[in-house]
């Protein structure tokens, strides 16, 4: 059980908090208990489940998840406690008194098997036709408990229609086991609140407002519910069949861009532990599969930094020098489509604060069908652009009607890490054994700044690396050791930092010389920045801004919809946990350190684009047309 200080979900779905003493060596801070006749000492308030896990005693769980508050509803984790008439759910029972626990008595084993039998009796479908085959927790538990027959029968007809309305998330309620992880993810972890149990008794179902299809409610498509669903009840909208068709069509030129987070996680789909970056191997795999061009989304991440950073400078100049009251500050990042939709629904009055710069995925999409098409002499209508993303919301993003600036659908398909792994397996390739290969020209390799976009704080760090050099005229390494901006790294929900500019400023770089005359107006100023990951944390900042708090004084804020940033995205391998996300982030940061170019403005391919194509520079006319976008005030009420 996480000892969360703030509670957000309805009480019935919250962890019950027993304040854990800060210093467990104080008297009364720990408690001696017995588990299976073995004496152990645990901190007061530890749940029975935690106590067992700490002592290497396995307890089966289903509704429990390390990221979520306690539900105590599946009842699989029940144990016997001496002196108690009933079994206790170990995930929900905080130890506050001496107790003797038994985890494998006849009564416990029988209860667990009965509960599994009951769940299976209502679980429609067959494992071999399920997206979660071999990655399903219900399936693993059945194996663990040696289920060989359906003791209490098995449902023969589906009760529900699969909701395929969303570009991102599909809901198949016939596979739902009512563990409420999705509900707790949506209400408590993300504070969006689209899903909730409706009706009661045997008619209980997880549903949306008025039972509407997911596309008709305020779902932000973050897919965090998919990552935590123990079965195949929730899954992403998979475009791989259509992509195969394009690959197999000789008339089509199929290009693919890969984001850094899938590369840091896809190894998990091939049995590797979390934390192995597979960038080179993935390039080889994609070329073998038959993609005609393999590119690095980090390239457009670098481009995003230039565009978004320039936009920030323009906003600051207008606000500070021109005293223009119409300028909206702080500027919010716009590369997380889940966050963008969250803002459009929950804080529509702030859409002007969103950077108009498109996300790296969408910038690349536009470039493929304009610049790249021209370079290669291919008719853009024959280009099929695929984006491998850690994200389910990217599927929605590429289908937004405004994302057609190339004259065609800029990105045809958003593909998740999981779906790409499936395609690679289908092609008979075992990814970890492949040799490494590089990205294709003309975009080539990108900078480490683009790479770290994958972890929370990464966009901010990339921006800082560029802004510091642009404005101060010094090497970022002189300000931040190794160019690692540690203040914005790590998994703290909300991060805040101040960067004093001081009296020394540098010359304005050529790239943006036409936009600002000099940096004198920034002398003595302090750049205030913040970072939030997970929409629950974003909400904290937004509420503070609304109340005129310290975050309203910020200049630039990075928001990511998913906990941990993109590495924890809704398209990433399942399972997820704080440890797994930490390992993925580590892989990204160490890959960054190994690169020669670690700043977006030093990416020579990006600079070449401005020389050859976007000739009127960052935030210029053409880049506004192709690389920037606009947003919609959606609000919470959808007709």
């Amino acid at each position, binding site marked *: 059980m996480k000892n969360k200080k703030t509670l957000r979900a*309805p009480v019935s779905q919250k962890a019950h908090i027993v304040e854990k003493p800060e210093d467990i060596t104080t008297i009364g801070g720990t408690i001696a208990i017995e588990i299976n006749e073995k004496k152990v000492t645990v901190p007061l308030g530890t749940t029975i489940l935690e106590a067992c896990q700490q002592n290497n005693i396995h307890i089966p769980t289903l509704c429990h998840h390390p990221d979520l508050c306690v539900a105590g509803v*599946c009842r699989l984790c029940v144990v016997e406690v001496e002196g108690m008439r009933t*079994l206790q*759910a170990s995930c929900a029972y905080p130890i506050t008194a001496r107790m003797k626990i038994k985890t494998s008595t006849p009564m416990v084993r029988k209860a667990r098997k*009965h509960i599994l039998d009951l769940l299976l*009796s209502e679980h429609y479908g067959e494992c071999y036709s399920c997206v979660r085959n071999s990655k399903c927790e219900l399936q693993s538990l059945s194996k663990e408990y040696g289920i060989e027959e359906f003791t209490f*029968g098995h449902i023969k007809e589906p009760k529900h229609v699969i909701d395929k309305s969303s570009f991102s998330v599909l809901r198949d309620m016939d596979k739902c086991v009512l563990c409420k992880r999705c509900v707790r993810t949506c209400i408590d972890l993300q504070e969006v609140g689209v899903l909730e149990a409706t009706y*009661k008794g*045997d008619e209980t179902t997880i549903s949306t407002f008025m039972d509407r299809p997911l596309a008709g409610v305020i779902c932000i498509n973050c897919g965090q519910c998919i990552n935590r669903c123990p079965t195949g009840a929730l899954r992403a909208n998979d475009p791989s069949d259509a992509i195969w068709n394009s690959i197999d069509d000789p008339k089509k030129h199929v290009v693919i861009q890969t984001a850094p987070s899938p590369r840091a996680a896809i190894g998990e789909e091939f049995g590797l532990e979390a934390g192995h970056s597979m960038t080179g191997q993935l390039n080889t795999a994609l070329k073998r599969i038959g993609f005609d061009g393999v590119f690095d989304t980090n390239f457009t991440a670098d481009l995003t930094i230039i565009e978004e950073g320039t936009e920030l400078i323009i906003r600051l100049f207008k606000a500070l020098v021109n005293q223009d009251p119409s300028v909206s500050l702080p500027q919010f990042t716009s590369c997380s489509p889940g966050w963008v939709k969250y803002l459009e629904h929950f804080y529509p009055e702030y859409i002007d604060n969103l950077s108009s710069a498109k996300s790296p995925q969408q910038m690349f999409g536009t470039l493929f069908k304009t610049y790249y098409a021209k370079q290669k002499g291919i008719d853009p209508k024959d280009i099929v652009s695929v984006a491998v993303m850690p994200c389910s919301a990217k599927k929605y993003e590429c289908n937004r009607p405004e994302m057609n600036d190339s004259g065609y659908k800029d990105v045809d398909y958003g593909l998740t890490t999981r779906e790409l792994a499936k395609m690679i397996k289908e092609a008979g390739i075992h990814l970890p054994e492949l040799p490494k290969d590089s990205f294709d020209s003309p975009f080539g390799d990108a900078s480490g700044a683009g790479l770290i976009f994958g972890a929370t704080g990464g966009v901010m760090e990339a921006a800082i690396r560029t802004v510091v050099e642009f404005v101060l005229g010094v090497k970022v390494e002189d300000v931040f050791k190794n160019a690692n901006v540690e203040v914005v790294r790590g998994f703290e929900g909300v991060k805040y930092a101040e960067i004093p500019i001081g009296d020394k400023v540098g010359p304005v770089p050529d790239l943006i010389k036409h936009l600002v005359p000099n940096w004198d107006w920034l002398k003595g100023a302090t750049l205030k920045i913040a970072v939030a990951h997970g929409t629950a944390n974003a909400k904290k900042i937004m509420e503070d801004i609304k109340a005129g708090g310290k975050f309203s004084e910020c200049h630039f804020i990075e928001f990511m919809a998913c906990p941990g940033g993109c590495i924890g995205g809704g398209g990433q391998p399942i399972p997820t946990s704080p440890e797994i996300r930490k390992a993925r982030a580590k892989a990204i940061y160490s890959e960054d350190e190994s690169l020669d170019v670690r700043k977006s403005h030093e990416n020579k391919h990006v600079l070449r684009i401005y020389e050859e194509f976007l000739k009127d520079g960052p935030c210029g006319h053409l880049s506004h047309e192709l690389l920037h976008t606009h947003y919609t005030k959606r609000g919470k009420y959808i007709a």
Partner: protein
Amino acid sequence: MENEKTNRVGSVIFSEYERGEAVKKAAEMSREDILGEIKISSLKGRGGAGFPTSTKWMLTAAAKSDEKYVICNADEGEPGTFKDRVLLLEYPKLVFEGMVVAGKTIGAKVGFLYLRGEYEYMLKSLHDYLSEMKQDQLLGKSICGKEGFDFDIQIRLGSGAYICGEETALIESLEGQRGEARNRPPFPVSTGYKNKPTTVNNVETLAAVSQIVTKGGEWYKTYGTNKSSGSKLFSVSGDCKKPGVYELPWGTKISELLKLVEAEKTKAVQVGGASGVCFPKSQFERTLAYEDISTGGSIIIFNESRDMVKVLKNFMEFFVEESCGQCTPCRIGNVKLLEGVEMIEDKTFTFNYINKLKELGKTMQVSSKCGLGQSSPNSFLSILENFSEEIFNGRNGGKHEK
């Protein structure tokens, strides 16, 4: 209140009582003294679980908090129970004054009457009664002129879900959320309404409190048995000539009760409503008391004309619908038990499968999240056990009526 009736017969709850007696007496007593009287009386919760009231109050009183709450559980939803309705309609003085006494004892300024949705028709008369109490300084600020003795009562309506009679689900409902039982611990005495210490008492318990405070714990203990003090209200329905609410001392035998209500040719008595246990003739000499048959007071009488399979089916259909649906054993387990009853009805069962269902019932009793699921298999298990001959061989040569 004009329609207030005081002609019911009973030695404890229905004994003579003048409006305001308990509050006036409590106003002069210390919190410790009130708690002491309740402790002497050995009063236990009358909703069915039988938790000692003084312990519950003591824990709530001892909990550190600037806000505490009293909740009167009037979500009388157990099939076959209607004693709370009688108390609220005819003896609101006992119930509301019991809440005021509870408030003083635990240190709460606000109490809620969580009234069953179906009792909406009482709302006006109850509100009128609360206004009268306020006029008489039995409620509100400075009760009985005592500085700092403040207590207010609000009435909240349920919406018809059986689960909301479970105290933590009731609290969820009171907070405006879906009625679902919470994990325990923590218990409401420390973490209740709005996560503040809360005591949740049954209507009848609070009525008893008023009598105890007025007449003393020792007086109360002169009724009932050694282990079950005082009296109990029984809601009697079914095959008898005089159904209704009866106040009887604890320790009354089932047979004595049957005689009193003029039941004839009785085959079975369901004690405790749908979640209770069904007793056959051979056990009619058992006593209604915490030490033998503990109950919230619902008595449903079935005579020889009744088909026990139909009786059981009715109960199981109730639970399938009224499970809140959050925990697996209750949500799906009850469906399986009902399917088993239908197999018996259709004669498509095997004994092997029925035995598996009995085992499942026992699992539900120990692994469900709250009292609903833990008690829902009671009637299934007891009826199959006590009426197996009729159930499996049929009544009239093998056919069950459909």
